């Protein structure tokens, strides 16, 4: 009924949505939208590296994004620049350096649009393995650090005082962020990955009254966005990333009706 490439894209997108759901909730709770953006922008550098060294894209993006996260932490300690300025500095300079490097690599044909906005034609069977195995590892790790991470998200000192290890949880979570960007870059594209993280989670906030339900709604929102987005992409020949994110936005707008009701009830 459908072409193989479309089935692959669908399976890949569903895998990605299962992981972006819970991670996206933490991105919103911990106010990390711009941090996610910075890591995603730096992914372009990782991609160029993968092409030059003929290396796996996901792994090289993961390595570069983790390094950028480390550099950010170091810069935060060394300078007094505010956090958003540092994030902007790293995001745009790594994007710029990546594009300059691409300019030098004239011997390789690059699909820049595909990199920036996702390309469902590009998803191979290998990518599926990376997404599903990598995704399962991310979720397992998240489950392992959940209590520490969540408690320190509510209140750092409380978590630290009562014997959880918030600093370790935060470090591991940073690595998980780099990992989700690495596995979802082909689907959504590096400019829109953060959208995939925060829009379904923002929609979920409007519908939920507990952290668990927010995570579940966020996953459902992500899944719906991927499915609707990919069918649109197939039907109208649009880029996969923007189609998925637009679908997510529509779901978010629908969720506003629900929140309006509950705010009215409160007043």
């Amino acid at each position, binding site marked *: 009924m459908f072409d193989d490439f479309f089935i692959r894209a669908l399976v890949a997108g569903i895998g990605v949505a299962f992981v972006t759901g819970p991670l996206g909730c933490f991105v919103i709770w911990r106010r990390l939208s711009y941090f996610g953006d910075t890591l995603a922008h730096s992914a372009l550098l990782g991609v160029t590296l993968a092409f030059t060294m003929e290396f796996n894209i996901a792994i090289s993006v993961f390595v570069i994004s983790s390094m950028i996260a480390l550099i950010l932490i170091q810069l935060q300690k060394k300078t007094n620049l505010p956090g958003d300025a540092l994030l902007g500095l790293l995001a745009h300079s790594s994007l710029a350096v990546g594009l300059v490097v691409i300019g030098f690599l004239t011997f390789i044909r690059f699909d820049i649009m595909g990199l920036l906005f996702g390309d469902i034609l590009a998803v191979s069977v290998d990518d599926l393995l990376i997404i599903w195995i990598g995704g399962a590892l991310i979720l397992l790790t998240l489950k392992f650090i959940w209590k520490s991470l969540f*408690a320190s998200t*509510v209140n750092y000192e409380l978590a630290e005082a*009562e014997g959880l290890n918030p600093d370790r949880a935060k470090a591991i979570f940073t690595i998980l962020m780099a990992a989700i960007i690495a596995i979802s870059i082909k689907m959504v594209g590096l400019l829109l990955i953060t959208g995939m993280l925060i829009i379904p989670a923002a929609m979920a906030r409007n519908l939920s009254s507990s*952290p668990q339900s927010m995570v579940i709604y966020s996953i459902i929102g992500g899944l719906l966005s991927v499915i609707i987005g990919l069918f649109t992409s197939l039907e109208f020949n649009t880029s996969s990333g923007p189609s998925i994110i637009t679908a997510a936005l529509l779901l978010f707008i629908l969720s506003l009706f629900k929140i309006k009701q509950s705010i009215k009830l409160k007043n």
Partner: protein
Amino acid sequence: MSTDQNILVKLNNAGLQLNNKWLVKGVSLQVEKGKIVTLIGPNGSGKSTTAKIALGIYKKIDGSVEKYTNKVGYVPQKISIDWTLPLRVNDFMILTESLNKETIDEALSLTGVIHLKDKNLGDLSGGEFQRVLLARAISKKPDLLVLDEPVQGVDFTGEIALYELIKKISDELSCGILLISHDLHTVMSATDFVVCLNGHVCCSGSPMDVAKNNEYKALFGEQASQILSRYEHKHDHIHTNEGEIKKN
């Protein structure tokens, strides 16, 4: 020594410096099982900082902390829950430790907020929230309770009831309590040991000893030594950035 085994946390000449300014300096105290130690002192005297040092929240401190238990319940002075985080009282109760329903209900009943169990934390009043914080801290039956102004915003009758509850918990669970309070009357009647802070330890000892102490009188005013007096204090000295003390 049996008394040594009863020690839950011990501060040895502990202090914390931030941006070349001493928040608190040279604090030595210990909290033992079944005992209530209270920190008193004016605003900015380093009470909360001392509590956090005892909890091991600060990594780079002066002096040392010896902590002999990991079962800790903490009621912070201030906690704000962002709107983006949907959190009901029930979710909050199991934040740092998984508890069964009976334990949660029991703790919430003790502090009188069982009816709020399914409410969103953001919808609670200040006093209600404070009761939930206390319930969460005692529900895990800790060895050491650190309570930073646990009854702020609680109504008058509730305040007395909660202090009685704290005293009862200390007796029944034989846990040690490090309490920060502004209510001198309660401090004096329910406390085993008082530490009076003003950037450093002004004086310490049993409530009666402290009430008679001249530095305490100087810090809190003559009337405070009459125990039932209003909370009031006068600074007789200031602290320079290096932590030196200058008499006014």
